[in-house]
């Protein structure tokens, strides 16, 4: 560790000593209409032919010759600006306006984020417009479901919002909301994600070639940023769907200085189901979530942000019964419930230390809790003697995090962007607590809580070696302290981009990543019962090595094509032992797991049309994913449950005019691998086995030996946009699973008339839905009112 710190120090000393300053133009790029910081905007010195791109926080720093310059500021969907800057003007804030042109407005694709000239490999930046235009299940827009349409990203199954990236399991995705990890990203047992897309402004998924600043998970980093709040004007928008409604309010508290945004969503499944429940039953199911953020500009150099999210799924039911006879009476009440949810908060401070150095410091809190309980109270009276009986059982598990980190961006000249930082996360793991009580007994069984520190540091440099070659080189160094033992894992990272022509390049990447958290899951579909557990002395951290390479080409007329291949090896994966599950009486999870290995490899193809009335993409992935555990499947390699040989997505949007646009999505995927017995046979019967109740067992030649039928479906949508005097409305019609494909959700065998048959359960048939969205624009309302004298 000491050697590495010394090396980093020497690197910076040598580096800074060779950097000579001329003039450094720096500042922020901000969207004029709402005050949001803009990332990936090009700032280009047209005289000296030098340019940079704005960072994640809208900050830029352009070092150029000490001369009057004209800079060009441009970004997709924004009006390009040319600004004449005399020598004395170096600090500035640039406001960009959105373009009005129809053709470009349709696209709104982040064309400057063309992957051709960046070192990013395996990176997807999702335009939130895509989320609005495409068909959705039950009218609920979902960021994660749009990501599932990208190559290399798979869904878990019908309706699932979980993502499986390049053969990794869901716990191997670091899902960050404003820099805070979210541990369970699912509502309604995985059918919807917890992210309210109205509140999200930016989504980036990195699935390979991780820069050193990303650590903590081995398969992907999904970095989502909440809207900052409009510091120019009030804005209210919302939508009403068939299962949920949502609302978002944002606006300035003090114009140009302080702004807020708050959004909320709640389902009304509980109200819809009420008529179907028996009269003596009460309860239901619903989920809700709330996002809120406030930002304050202290001055040009300091910004403060506070953001929070909390959401919960609640299912409960209470049944009562009572009766009377001549000599006796009884009254029973049974209550069962389960709930789970996340709560996060982040306090962020952006500080521009000088024209070349920027720091983002964040303090965060994250909590996930799953709770399940049941209770009964029974009272009976016989011959005037009353007997009361009661019983209750409760189970909970969860994880809490407190963390702090600082991320520095140093841009000494246009050829280097250096990032470095450090942080610590204090985890509290609560892997399963059972409590029970009756009127005479009570007890608790609990696995030990674990208190751990996850410490991280990194340094990386994005280097432009010449006009054709760029590299990103870095190292992440992480440590984990648990039960008086420590692990430390250096993780080298490397990515390269070589421009073949102005519009095509090849890319290479290597990343070693370490993960100190594990998720114990029986299903892998993101059920709330899944258990977060730490690395311990007997359960080492997951280590992954991934190499990837690709080719990217931009064509004329807005087409682009990319192909990427990857090979990933993972060690120290955990899985429940054969026959184990989360609900075993044994609460020591470490005795229920096996430790093994995994491999994933494949190729991803992506063809996208970015401009014109018809836009969209075709993504195809050919992949293999296998697992091996010494004590599972007799040590033989078996396919991972979500090993999917072929995965195809075809996505299209068509803008007919200012009023109507249409969307269509077709997906096809090889069926999931499941374990299915092919033969039954008798157990040995003698004095030892006497007492085993089931006399037969199923034989299967391998775990996950059978493929469910292929998954495919077509969804379509139509959106009707109407401009109103007070704002805008969008009426959306969607049809999910247009040709009513019976896709497999799970398989089981059933005995029917002396014959065992294979049965398939499907979830969603053709489902039409409608939703209505509105956006109230106060400026527009006032302008119209002043013209007409009435709203």
């Amino acid at each position, binding site marked *: 560790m000491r050697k590495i710190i010394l090396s980093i120090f020497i690197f910076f000393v040598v580096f800074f000593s060779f950097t000579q300053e001329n003039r450094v133009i720096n500042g922020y790029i901000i969207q004029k209409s709402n005050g949001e910081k803009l990332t990936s905007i090009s700032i280009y010195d047209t005289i000296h032919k030098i340019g940079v791109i704005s960072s994640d926080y809208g900050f830029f720093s352009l070092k150029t010759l000490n001369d009057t310059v004209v800079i060009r500021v441009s970004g997709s969907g924004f009006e390009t600006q040319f600004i004449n800057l005399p020598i004395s003007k170096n600090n500035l804030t640039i406001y960009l306006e959105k373009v009005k042109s129809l053709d470009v407005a349709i696209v709104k694709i982040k064309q400057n984020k063309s992957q051709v000239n960046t070192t990013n490999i395996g990176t997807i930046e999702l335009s939130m417009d895509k989320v609005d235009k495409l068909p959705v299940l039950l009218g609920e827009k979902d960021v994660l479901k749009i990501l599932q349409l990208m190559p290399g990203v798979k869904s878990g199954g019908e309706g699932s919002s979980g993502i499986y990236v390049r053969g990794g399991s869901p716990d191997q995705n670091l899902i960050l909301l404003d820099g805070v990890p979210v541990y369970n990203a699912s509502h309604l047992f995985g059918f919807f994600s917890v992210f309210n897309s109205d509140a999200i402004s930016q989504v980036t998924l990195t699935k390979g070639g991780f820069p050193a600043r990303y650590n903590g998970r081995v398969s992907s980093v999904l970095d989502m940023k909440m809207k900052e709040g409009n510091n120019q004007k009030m804005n209210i928008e919302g939508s009403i769907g068939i299962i949920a409604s949502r609302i978002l309010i944002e606006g300035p508290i003090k114009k140009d200085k302080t702004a807020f945004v708050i959004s909320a969503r709640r389902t009304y499944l509980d109200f819809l189901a009420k008529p179907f429940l028996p009269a003596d039953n009460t309860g239901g199911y619903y989920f809700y979530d709330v996002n809120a953020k406030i930002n304050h500009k202290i001055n040009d150099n300091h910004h403060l942000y506070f953001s929070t999210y909390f959401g919960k799924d609640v299912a409960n039911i209470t049944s009562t019964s009572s009766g009377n006879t001549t000599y006796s009476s009884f009254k029973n009440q049974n209550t*069962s419930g389960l709930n789970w949810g996340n709560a996060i908060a982040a306090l962020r401070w952006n500080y521009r230390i000088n024209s070349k150095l920027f720091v983002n410091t964040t303090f965060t809190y994250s909590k996930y809790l799953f709770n399940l309980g049941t209770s009964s109270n029974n009272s009976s009276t016989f011959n005037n003697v009353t007997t009361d*009986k009661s019983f209750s059982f409760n189970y909970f598990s969860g994880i809490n995090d407190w963390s702090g980190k600082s991320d520095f961006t140093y841009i000494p000249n246009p050829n280097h962007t250096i990032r470095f930082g450090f942080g610590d996360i204090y985890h509290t793991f609560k892997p399963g607590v059972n409590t029970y009580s009756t009127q005479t007994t009570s007890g608790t069984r609990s696995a030990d809580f674990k208190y751990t520190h996850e410490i991280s540091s990194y340094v990386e440099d994005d280097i432009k070696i010449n006009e054709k070659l760029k590299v990103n080189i870095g190292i992440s160094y992480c440590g984990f302290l648990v039960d008086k033992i420590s692990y430390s894992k250096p993780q080298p990272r490397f990515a390269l981009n070589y421009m073949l022509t102005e519009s095509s390049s090849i890319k290479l990447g290597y990343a070693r990543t370490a993960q100190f958290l594990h998720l114990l899951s029986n*299903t892998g579909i993101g059920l709330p019962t899944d258990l977060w557990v730490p690395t311990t002395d007997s359960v080492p951290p997951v280590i992954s090595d991934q190499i990837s390479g690709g080719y990217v080409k931009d064509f004329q007329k807005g087409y682009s094509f990319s192909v990427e291949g990857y090979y990933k090896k993972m060690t120290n994966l955990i899985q429940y032992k054969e026959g184990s599950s989360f609900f075993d009486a044994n609460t020591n999870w470490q005795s229920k797991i096996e430790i093994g290995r995994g491999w994933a490899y494949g190729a991803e193809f992506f063809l996208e049309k970015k401009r014109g009335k018809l836009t969209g993409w075709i993504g195809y992935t050919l992949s293999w994913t296998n697992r091996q555990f010494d004590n599972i499947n007799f040590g033989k390699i078996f396919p991972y449950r979500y090993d999917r040989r072929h995965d195809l997505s075809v996505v299209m949007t068509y803008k007919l005019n200012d009023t109507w646009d249409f969307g269509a999505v077709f997906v096809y995927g090889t069926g999931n691998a499941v374990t299915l017995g092919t*033969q*039954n*046979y008798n157990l040995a*019967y003698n004095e030892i086995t006497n007492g085993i109740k089931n006399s037969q*067992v199923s034989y299967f030649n391998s775990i996950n030996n059978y493929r469910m039928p292929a998954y495919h479906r077509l969804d379509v949508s139509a959106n009707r946009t109407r401009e109103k005097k007070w704002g805008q409305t969008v009426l959306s019609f969607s049809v999910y699973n247009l040709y009513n494909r019976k896709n497999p959700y799970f398989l089981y065998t059933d005995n029917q008339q002396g014959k065992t048959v294979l049965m398939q359960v499907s979830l969603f*048939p053709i489902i039409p839905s409608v939703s209505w969205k509105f956006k109230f624009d106060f400026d527009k309302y006032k302008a119209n009112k002043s013209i007409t004298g009435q709203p």
Partner: protein
Amino acid sequence: MKKIAIYLSFILLVISCKKEIPFTGALQKEFIVVNGFIQDDSIVKVSLSHSTPSIGIVDTLANQITFGATLLITDLTTNEKFTSDSVDIEGNYIFKTKGIKGHNYQLALNHPEYGVVSSTITSIPSPVSISEWDTSSIASTKGKGAKNKLLNFTFTDPIGKNYYVFKIVAIDTSDFVDRNVTIRVQDNTQISGKTNGDFLFLDDELFENQTKSVSLNFRPSYYGSESFGPGSFGSNTGVERKYRFEFYNVTEEVYNYLLSVSNSVQSRKNPLSEPVKVYTNITNGMGIFGGYAKTVVLLK
């Protein structure tokens, strides 16, 4: 919890549908199943049956009994060979020889339909003598109410690698039905066992060739009900049964087989649990060919 499950199942049923689909996987050929346990000083018997496809016509257990095989057992220690001279109606092929502790055996089987099948046993185990035992202690629990009992016993682990299987059987003198009771290793014992309720599995890795005391925690059993004893749920009635402690010293193959069988049976009760592959040491077939020795103590 049950209500929640019913409620969610209701929602699932409203929106879901099920249908029969064809089985499209590679068809697994039926195989022969060998169940052969050789015990010291007991007549050697091997029962044969065959598997049936998981999908299709359900076969009766009786129809799975397999006759017509030729079996040869070789005592590899003395090189004596034995053929079965009779088969009973339950498919037990009976040999005119008894198992001998410490001897190795080989099974060779030929069946016109299932071909040649073979397996071996390395060293029939010896019975383990229990030097002392008692059941007077009550297990310490945090809660109130009925207490689990403790069986404390001491034995000397024989030289070599040994594998043990323990059972405690509640003896029912009224209807002649014996029931296994739930057992586990008491938490404060310096050994770790694997339990799936009815059986407790233990190997001697941590106490090779030592005299070892073990404390087993078991749930008392009462006439009329397995669960309700004095004090539980307010009941003061219930007559406790007597118990039989069965201590098996088994070969590694039998240990692995029983452990996987036990896991498999447990996993059937829980739809969320991971699938279990049942162990076999039969080449070109399934089942088990192994040895064991038994020690039984009637608990007071």
